[in-house]
């Protein structure tokens, strides 16, 4: 028996060996030459229901499988960077920007002619009208409630002109059809009109106006392969730009572990990585000679027009006190936070707009003189808290700690990592707290005015975006050093956002964001609208949109109301003026503590493809899950044969 059992083992191992030998040999995409396909990471990972493409009906957990980038299209796009032809405003399915009547109750849209759906049917006004009417009838659909609230009726003027009649004046109605990250896409009438239940319909295969069609996909949800339409010249991109996208195939692929992304790209098996921890991206850029990043060198990453911030619920004591919020800001050493969270690759912002896209010119240059003069008063003392030297300090620290090459010119550094931040002034912070009745105990720990120890738990993301967890840990450490019993609590993003929106956790601040902008358009209404007190929801009720700190200010209400009156296209100057007012109020009140823009380490590989967007040629956002990355495909070129 001993013998026989060993024999048995021999059999087992030879089976293993046999299986192993089957497994040997390299693999390529069957029937697709590597040089014709661009492989892109889809950050949503595994799509749970991959056969469902009905973005309108909901139930699609992953939008970035290519369906919103290269298949579906909508009327307009605003690029977070400079835009493919130098203008961030892009008319895609529409021929021109929307035309409003005088009191913004009607919006006329002229459509581009000659576009066909990927199955050959012509794209006309009927599709737009059908989309709006279907959504209006189904508030449970993704943009349904919006249409129901806003649209009185939608009329066909001719085959390529649509007239929207709105229920009330709304000069920003078109933004629902304007892609920032995503927007309401136009649905093909000829497909959906045959469908009984537009919510249940899977929309498989997806039919879009975009230049690519779905070829095959993984039933397990890990990859989606798209093929260039033969009639690409009749797709929205083709008609608008007349240029043929170079990649014949696009493969969107979900990859969960960051180590794998790095190794895949080193092996030239992954052309665009969506995001990486800083160390991974920097390692790649140092080791792969074909590596393309937004900045060619420190700080590498692309700053998204999103502003992570320390968000405090003003309904909880002591965060209702302006002094406390300011004290918390001054107790943060920004150089340390940038270093620990981002290896110094953060684009910092002292004010409440993201320092990205065209915003430096619109807002930062204009506000900086005011910031330099801005004074905080604590009792009889005064402090000018703005520190324009922080970018240089970050650069020096980076050079020292990591040995990265940094430019000598402070103006250059400013372009790379932002204008400045608040001084690290724990002494002033202490005076601010004392003025609010806080005391220190014998061990140097802060006590609340009622004598209890002050505890803060920073709720942050767990394993999804490492920089966010790291930043929260860095801030907690800064506060501990200052004498507050601070710690981080990491949770999954959906839990973080749910808890933030209810705001019920005592002793908790949130490390997330509620300020997001177009990047390529100065209008702040996009996020600011919900800061109006008419949308205010008390703690325990979920906030309506982007006011989780439950901030209420009459001055802010007035700005929002004035902003509502401005014209999206004609009144840019006025918008910027109001935006500057908004920034000043925010700096005074510090409703949330802005920290830095969400910098994405999108790393591209130039081995098979070149022409990726970079800071030198910022024609679009390289971050590949954004809807507007579709413009990248007409700029990409195959790399020279090796």
């Amino acid at each position, binding site marked *: *028996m001993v013998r026989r059992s060993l024999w*048995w083992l021999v059999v087992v191992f030879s089976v293993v060996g046999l299986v192993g030998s089957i497994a040997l040999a390299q693999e390529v995409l069957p029937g697709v030459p590597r040089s014709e396909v661009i492989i892109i990471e889809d950050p949503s990972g595994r799509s749970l229901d991959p056969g469902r493409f009905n973005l309108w009906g909901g139930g699609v957990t992953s939008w970035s499988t290519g369906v919103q980038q290269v298949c579906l299209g909508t009327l307009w796009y605003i690029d977070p960077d400079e835009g493919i032809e130098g203008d961030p405003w892009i008319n895609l399915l529409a021929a021109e920007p929307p035309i409003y009547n005088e009191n913004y109750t009607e919006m006329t849209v002229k459509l581009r002619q000659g576009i066909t759906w990927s199955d050959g049917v012509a794209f006309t006004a009927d599709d737009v009208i059908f989309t709006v009417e279907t959504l209006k009838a189904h508030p449970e659909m993704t943009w349904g409630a919006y249409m129901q609230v806003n649209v009185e009726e939608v009329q066909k003027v001719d085959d390529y002109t649509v007239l929207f009649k709105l229920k009330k004046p709304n000069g920003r109605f078109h933004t629902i059809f304007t892609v920032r*990250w995503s927007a309401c896409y136009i649905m093909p009438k000829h497909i959906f009109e045959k469908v009984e239940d537009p919510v249940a319909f899977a929309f498989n295969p997806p039919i879009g106006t975009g230049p690519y069609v779905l070829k095959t996909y993984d039933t397990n949800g890990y990859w989606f392969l798209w093929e260039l339409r033969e009639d690409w010249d009749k797709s929205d991109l083709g008609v608008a730009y007349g240029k043929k996208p170079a990649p014949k195939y696009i493969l969107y692929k979900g990859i969960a572990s960051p180590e794998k992304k790095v190794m895949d790209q080193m092996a030239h098996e992954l052309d665009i990585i969506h995001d990486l921890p800083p160390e991974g991206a920097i390692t790649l850029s140092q080791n792969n000679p074909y590596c393309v990043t937004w900045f060619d060198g420190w700080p590498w990453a692309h700053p998204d027009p999103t502003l992570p911030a320390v968000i405090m619920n003003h309904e909880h004591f002591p965060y209702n006190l302006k002094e406390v919020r300011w004290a918390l800001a001054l107790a943060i050493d920004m150089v340390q936070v940038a270093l620990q969270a981002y290896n110094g690759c953060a684009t910092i912002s002292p004010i409440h707009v993201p320092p990205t896209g065209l915003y430096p010119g619109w807002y930062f240059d204009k506000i900086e003189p005011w910031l330099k003069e801005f004074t905080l008063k604590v009792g009889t003392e005064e402090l000018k808290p703005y520190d324009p030297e922080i970018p240089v300090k970050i650069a020096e620290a980076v050079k020292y700690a990591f040995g990265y090459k940094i430019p000598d010119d402070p103006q250059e550094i400013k372009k790379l990592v932002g204008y400045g931040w608040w001084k690290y002034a724990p002494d002033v912070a202490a005076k601010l707290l004392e003025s609010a009745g806080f005391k220190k105990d014998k061990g140097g720990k802060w006590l609340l005015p009622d004598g209890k120890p002050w505890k803060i738990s920073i709720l942050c993301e767990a394993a999804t975006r490492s920089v966010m967890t790291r930043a929260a840990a860095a801030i907690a450490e800064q506060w501990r050093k200052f004498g507050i019993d601070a710690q981080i609590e990491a949770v999954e993003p959906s839990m973080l956002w749910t808890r933030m929106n209810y705001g019920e956790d005592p002793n908790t601040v949130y490390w997330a964001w509620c300020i997001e902008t177009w990047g390529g358009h100065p209008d702040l209404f996009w996020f600011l609208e*919900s800061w109006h007190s008419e949308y205010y929801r008390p703690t325990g009720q979920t906030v309506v949109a982007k006011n989780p700190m439950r901030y209420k200010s009459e001055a802010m209400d007035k700005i929002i109301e004035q902003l509502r009156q401005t014209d999206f296209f004609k009144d840019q100057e006025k918008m910027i003026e109001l935006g500057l007012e908004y920034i000043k109020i925010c700096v005074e009140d510090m409703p949330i503590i802005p920290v830095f823009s969400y910098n994405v380490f999108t790393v591209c590989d130039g081995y098979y493809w070149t022409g990726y967007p970079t800071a030198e040629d910022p024609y679009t956002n390289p971050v590949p899950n954004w809807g507007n990355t579709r413009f990248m495909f007409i700029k990409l070129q195959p790399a020279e044969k090796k």
Partner: protein
Amino acid sequence: MGGFLKFFIRYLGARLIVCFLVIFVGVTITFLIPRLIPGSNPAEIAVRRLQMAGAYLPPESVEPMREALLKLYGLEGSMIEQYFRYWRELLKGNLGPSFASFPTPVVVLISRSLPWTVGLLALTAVVSWVIGTLLGGVASYRGKRLWVRVFEMFSNAVRPIPYYIFALTLLIIFAYVLRWFPAGGAFQVGIVPSFSSTFVKSVIKHGFLPALSLIIIGMGAWFLNMRNLASGVTHEDFVIFAHQMKIKESTILKNYVMKTAMPAQLTGLALQLGTVFSGTIITEIVFNYPGLGTLAFTAIMQSDYNLIMGITLCSIVAVAFATLLVDLLLPFVDPRIQYTGGAG
């Protein structure tokens, strides 16, 4: 024999009732817990998902949407009403739609991941059990041999290594450095599942590394367990007696040592097979493997109640029946154990 049958049936009846009670309790607990978490219902999460993704949702349309979704998901009514509705539907065999992937039925989502998880985990569990138990049995008998010592140390050394690191190391060595195996997925990108030899080969090729990582880790545990159990047996009177009777060593090993240690090992195997339905999330993350682990984790994070219930139900039923099976089979493996329950 008739007496035995009667006895067996009575025992089986009692045991089945317990089994169903266990399932009932398990389902009730998994029904309650997610609903007790404050401020998380699937409609909220759906709206939040849109906001997090950066889709534009103006404030005034958020509330109508939330209400419409609640209605759509059938989440109105008190928790007790929902509970009874859930059982009513469950008994009809309806697990309901997934909320995050609405309106795809939960059953469809589970059935897509199930074959991969069960295929990978059941196979690796059985293989590692067989190898571990056999080697462990032999080792208990040949405790002083060099290979036993080496294998024992190896098993001990491998088991505590954090699985993520262990799996990733395997992956780096075999998929990136040696390039023997693909780096991830269940089968090759670009091919469509079918019963063709290309597909089957591709599945084996892709399953090899994840399976290997699970077997190496699993085998050691069974080996050490078996060694410990069986070495206890080798010191028993009847084994010593058998030696003195000059019975062939292989017979002693097979009939005395292995057999007596078998009940505990089998119990372990059955229970592990039952837990297969929970999936292994880290394996799935490292190897991009499509299984129930990531499905369940996503479901929890999106408060997809029905999907959570569906997956846990699978797992609960599987484990409950596995334990039942163990109780029924043990007397056959070890005749000294009798059906003691119920009829006592």
